[in-house]
């Protein structure tokens, strides 16, 4: 399927496996979603659902022992999975860039901050690193750091919040069309998290970058993103605008997740989802959620549900729904 549904990114039928001594881990099994320019997509799901693998597959960064078996990742009009490595390199760190959860371990410990940002800018602008220090200082000021002081600092001298600001400066230095942020605030304290999210919000608003934010925190995604993809065990479970997803969650997994999240002022009792996340070496047949699903039916065990549009721009992979939005 080569259907293009978003004008920036269109991922379809993405299948990724990892070959391990335990067997073949079927990490992604037909992931589908798309993004328009300037949109903010949140990808949520629990440990092992494949959200980080998805973000790496989008950049064609799956390494041994992993392999992309199938699918297409249309970035504007190019299929990233079919490009030559040399062509992908022009996209990576340029048109698509990334920031990570552990900012300190993603920075080079033996190079100072200024050099690392100047290096990115040098690559992007095809100039020498030396000539980029002025632009580097501007980037540092932009992310709220004192450029004179921070320029010559090494990563170990930075606090977690400062390091994440440096990562944001590096990520936004090429002014990418798409910024992938993999749990950018999970390692930070809440008051610092609020600062970083505010900064990111301000900057991408200003420059118009699209953001794909990977997170396990429904609260962060609800506040930052305008679209949400819920993943479960390597599948796209539900995809909708943030408002629609919270107003009317369709997939039983999404409903379950929302009932399990504690929230200040919440008065109803928390409801856990029974069972545990399946082992993807031997995933359940049919719908991978059927063993934990409170509304499971006979067909769920046999057939994998397809990802269908139930309401306008509200997609779900569940046998409960027909194409007209009616429950069967």
């Amino acid at each position, binding site marked *: 399927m080569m259907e293009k549904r978003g004008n920036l990114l269109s991922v379809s039928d993405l299948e990724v496996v990892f070959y391990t001594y335990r067997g073949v881990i079927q990490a992604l099994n037909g992931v589908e979603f798309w993004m328009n320019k300037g949109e903010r997509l949140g990808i949520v799901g*629990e440990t092992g659902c494949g959200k980080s693998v998805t973000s790496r597959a989008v950049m064609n960064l799956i390494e041994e022992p992993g392999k992309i078996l199938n699918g297409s990742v249309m970035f504007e009009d190019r299929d990233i999975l079919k490009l030559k490595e040399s062509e992908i390199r022009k996209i990576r760190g340029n048109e698509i860039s990334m920031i990570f959860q552990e900012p300190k371990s993603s920075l080079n410990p033996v190079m100072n901050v200024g050099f690392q940002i100047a290096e990115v800018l040098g690559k992007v602008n095809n100039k020498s690193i030396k000539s980029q220090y002025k632009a580097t200082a501007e980037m540092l000021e932009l992310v709220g750091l004192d450029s004179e002081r921070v320029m010559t600092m090494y990563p170990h001298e930075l606090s977690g919040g400062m390091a994440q600001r440096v990562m944001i400066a590096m990520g936004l230095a090429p002014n990418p069309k798409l910024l992938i942020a993999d749990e950018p605030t999970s390692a930070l*304290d809440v008051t610092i998290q609020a600062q970083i999210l505010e900064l990111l919000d301000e900057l991408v608003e200003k420059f118009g970058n699209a953001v794909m934010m990977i997170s396990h925190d429904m*609260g962060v995604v*609800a506040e930052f993103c305008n679209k949400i993809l819920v993943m479960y065990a390597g599948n796209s479970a539900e995809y909708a605008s943030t408002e629609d997803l*919270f107003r009317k969650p369709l997939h039983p997994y999404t409903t379950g997740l929302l009932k399990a999240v*504690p929230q*200040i002022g919440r008065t109803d009792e*928390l409801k856990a989802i029974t069972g*545990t*996340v399946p082992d993807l070496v031997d995933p359940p047949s049919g719908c991978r959620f059927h063993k934990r699903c409170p509304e499971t039916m006979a067909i769920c065990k046999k057939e994998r549900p397809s990802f269908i549009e139930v309401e306008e721009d509200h997609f779900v992979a569940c046998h409960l729904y027909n194409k007209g939005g009616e429950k069967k």
Partner: protein
Amino acid sequence: MSENLLEIKNLEKHFNLKKSIFSKTRVVRAVDDVTFSIPKNTTYAVVGESGSGKTTLGRTILKLIEPTGGQAIIRGVNIFDLNNKDFMEYRRKMQVVFQDPYNSLHPKKLVKTIIGEGMKIHFKGIGEEEIRNRIKEVLEHVGLREEHMFRYPHEFSGGQRQRIAFARAIVLNPEFIVLDEPTSALDVSVQAMVLKMLKETKRDENLTYLFITHDLSVVDYLADYVAVLYLGEIVEKGKKDDVFTKPAHPYTELLLNSNPIPNPFLKRDKIIAKGEIPSPINPPSGCRFHTRCRYAQEKCKLEEPVEREIRKGHIVKCHFPLI
């Protein structure tokens, strides 16, 4: 008001940092003059960010690290004064569950041994049969099965391991359990299960919890009382409902506001804190929060605020509380 199980008075834990033989010793005031009381059969939450001293507080109360000052009083006895032999009985009554279920269980021991070990020490002369029955009982209580006794920790998921750690704590019939971030390593769906289990067990076994966490939404679910810690000091404490609905300290207000809400229809104005959390080695003068406080005035820089009671049992340490 019900009887207090534990009273903490002016608790202090200072760590000495020695840089070199030439420089002066510097002191980290990890826990500084902390006072609060935990009523029987309640959950008392201690919230704070990294460096606030919340974990040190929990460990000091259990005497896992020696306090440098203060008292912890259970039924009139200051447990810090007891020698190791006399403290044994309290060790049984005071248990702990740690944050990381992957590191807090011995990887080479069977679940049976992990849970049963304490019983052999505290209930001298207890028979194997009795131990096994009791283990079976607690395993079922935490939602596991009898056959899990003969497995090793690596065979369990994170949520299940945390249940084992909790089973190990309750098997000795304790009165008091310190829960140090018991769910922060878990996914939300699993977290919900563990939280429910904690709540139910507290009710069934008449337990009292000291619940240490950074997650305010979990506090809201579980706690009856809450103390907010900032750089080793309690800045606000009281009934959870009072503190959460009528926060009086600007730091509490900030924490509550920073907590992301999983509800896109609740729009609110975000308060963005100034700067970063200062180092506890050299905390700011006066009110320790003044460097980040949006209401700070000259007085806050110069003078340390005193605690004041703004409503019954609701205490705040601020020159200009939000009333």
